[in-house]
């Protein structure tokens, strides 16, 4: 039983293999050859404290009830599962269902994890949380949880990203957080994580590092997944209720991989459900400008975990590129690396253009403006649908669940520029995303 949701945790409804072979609750620190704690000794005591606090909290009914209550009465869970009928027509008639994480408070799945970790921070007696953010969604969610629980909040954000997502910077500041632009390196998510780690080393007594994705050293990957498991558990129950059976495929976008691991969790033991993670292909994986970590990376260590990594022949991290700030990360969570190696999940790249086409399609067919991150999953669903039909599946009997991990309000500036909806002078002012301009 996953106590945060009350769902069976042993895959009892699933077509799972033998008990004990479940992939759903891998505890870390290792996921096959990946995971671990490749990080400075100075932080190990804090990681141990976090791990002990997390393990104790999971077993504490009071904590479990707190999470459940916040999920329901603050975030608005369960999030809906919406059948996207007009989008489905454009996908050749297959049935596409959207897991509506965009409808959560703060507009994305990120809230699930921050509420849980902020509660843990309080249990540890920490008074300050720090966070990194790419698109700003995790920063906004962290600032929200900090405001709710009376914690000081500092958010590190690449200077490049503060320009692309200036509205989210204002949002975090309105919520009482301090946003620190990071000018080191590529000025994006990975550099924001570096700076947050430097802050953490210096302030670990008072501070919890509220990492926003299912990456980093143990216990972060397993812990972040735990708080997002509710996505997959709800989705599985909802699709069975609405369609009468499990889906043929589940699609999610992958940056670090937190929304994906959350929804995959519900279906990992359902051997007949194909799972797909869609990485940011940027300008295309035949160019140097992408963030297709699993597709083209090789194993290495970054930010505390061994996983696939975009790196050069010297092991220097390569700067990633994506129109989506939230996927613009050269690493990926270690559990995804493992699930890729064992073949349980297929990981594929989606280019900026494919993602933006799917973004537009969902806007116009469903009246839903998706996050550009989530648009990668939508584009992936279109590809899965085409392949299924080509291989002879009956469209009306094919079901795909897409994790719509966030809403696209934050991306309106980028999208308006991509689709030439504002005059060029205004675009310079309003900007958003120089990468998008270059890409067009």
């Amino acid at each position: 039983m996953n106590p945060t949701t009350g769902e069976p945790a042993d895959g009892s409804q699933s077509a799972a293999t033998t008990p004990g072979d479940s992939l759903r609750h891998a505890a870390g620190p290792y996921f096959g050859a990946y995971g671990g704690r490749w990080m400075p000794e100075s932080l190990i005591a804090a990681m141990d404290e976090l791990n002990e606090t997390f393990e104790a909290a999971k077993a504490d009914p009071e904590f479990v009830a707190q999470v459940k209550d916040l999920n329901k009465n603050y975030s608005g869970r369960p999030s809906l599962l919406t059948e996207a009928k007009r989008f489905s027509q454009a996908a050749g008639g297959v049935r596409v269902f959207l897991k509506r994480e965009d409808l959560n408070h703060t507009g994305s799945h990120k809230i699930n994890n921050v509420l849980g970790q902020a509660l843990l921070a309080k249990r540890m007696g920490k008074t300050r949380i720090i966070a990194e953010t790419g698109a700003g969604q995790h920063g906004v969610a962290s600032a929200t949880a900090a405001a709710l629980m009376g914690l000081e909040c500092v958010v590190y954000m690449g200077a490049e990203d503060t320009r692309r997502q200036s509205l989210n910077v204002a949002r975090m500041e309105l919520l009482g957080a301090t946003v620190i632009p990071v000018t080191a390196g590529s000025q994006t998510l990975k550099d924001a994580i570096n700076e947050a780690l430097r802050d953490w080393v210096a302030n670990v007594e008072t501070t919890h590092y509220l990492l926003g994705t299912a990456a980093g050293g143990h216990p972060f990957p397993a812990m972040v997944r735990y708080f997002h498991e509710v996505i997959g558990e709800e989705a599985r129950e909802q699709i069975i209720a609405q369609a009468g059976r499990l889906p043929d495929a589940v699609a999610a976008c992958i940056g670090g991989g937190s929304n994906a691991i959350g929804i995959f969790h519900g279906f990992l033991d359902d051997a007949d459900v194909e799972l797909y993670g869609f990485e940011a292909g940027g300008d295309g994986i035949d160019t140097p400008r992408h963030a297709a970590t699993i597709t083209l990376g090789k194993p290495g260590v970054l930010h505390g975990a061994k996983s696939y990594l975009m790196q050069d022949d010297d092991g220097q991290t390569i700067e990633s590129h994506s129109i989506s700030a939230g996927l613009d990360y050269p690493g990926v969570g270690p559990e995804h690396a493992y699930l890729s190696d064992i073949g349980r999940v297929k990981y594929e790249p989606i280019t900026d253009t494919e993602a933006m086409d799917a973004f537009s399609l969902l806007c116009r067919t469903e009246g839903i403006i998706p996050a550009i991150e989530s648009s990668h999953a939508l584009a992936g669903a279109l590809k899965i649908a085409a392949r299924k039909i080509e291989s002879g599946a009956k469209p009306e009997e094919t079901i795909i669940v897409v994790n719509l991990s966030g809403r696209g309000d934050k991306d309106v500036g980028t999208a308006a520029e991509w689709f030439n909806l504002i005059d060029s002078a205004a675009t310079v002012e309003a900007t958003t995303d120089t990468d998008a301009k270059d890409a067009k």
Partner: protein
Amino acid sequence: MNNVSVNNVSKSAAAIAAARAQGRPALICYLPAGFPDVQGTIDAAVAMAENGADIIEVGIPYSDPVMDGAVIQAATVQALAQGFRVAQVFEIIKGITDRCSATVMVMTYWNPVLSMGVDEFSRRLAEAGGAGLITPDLIPDEAAEWMEASDKYGLDRVFLVAPSSTEARMKATVEASRGFVYCVSIMGVTGARTEVSDAAASVVAAAHAAGAENACVGLGVSARKHVEEIGAYADGVIVGTALVAALHDGGVPAVAKLTAELSGRHIAV
């Protein structure tokens, strides 16, 4: 701590023992490889050795140096921007050991070593005359491959201990180390500080209590008075940022002068 490896006696332990025989702490001086350029690194390291450095610590520039503050980051970013390649660190070590007798250690984040292959990196390091590695983001828990390679090639392995290290971790880390243990003086990243934290003495005491023969203190050490203070209880003193700043501002002569000051000598002519 086992300071006798399969093939030879630990080079860094020998350097520290030689300093101890003279009644002083060993002086360990850091500079980044490829800064200001490859030849500049060699020249600066030789100047360090000639002015009282017992051990030279050459850092490999890395894209994501989470334990480094602004001064060292700026230097390593410059080295990388100039096209520094990891394999050049072996040329630098050879360049230094050909010209002086100082013990040369390499400080590196772990991914560049993993990328080359731990065995191949270790073999080339030993061939170039390097004494071993200081590994700021590798803990003994993850170091199985490095333990094996360092034994095979007779290299020192210097892990870090911190004010936050528990007694059990202190013991395990001291046992895994060879040469010395690197005692982080404060909870923070590299950078010169006016005062050295009181925590340094407790970390060193804990390391000695856990069986460390050689406990050396780094982070925030920048002046002769720090060397004297720390030398009263530690076996070696590690200086980084202050030397990098000197190299940046005044080139090799400034490094020579600062090293001479740190070691309590007059500058070599």
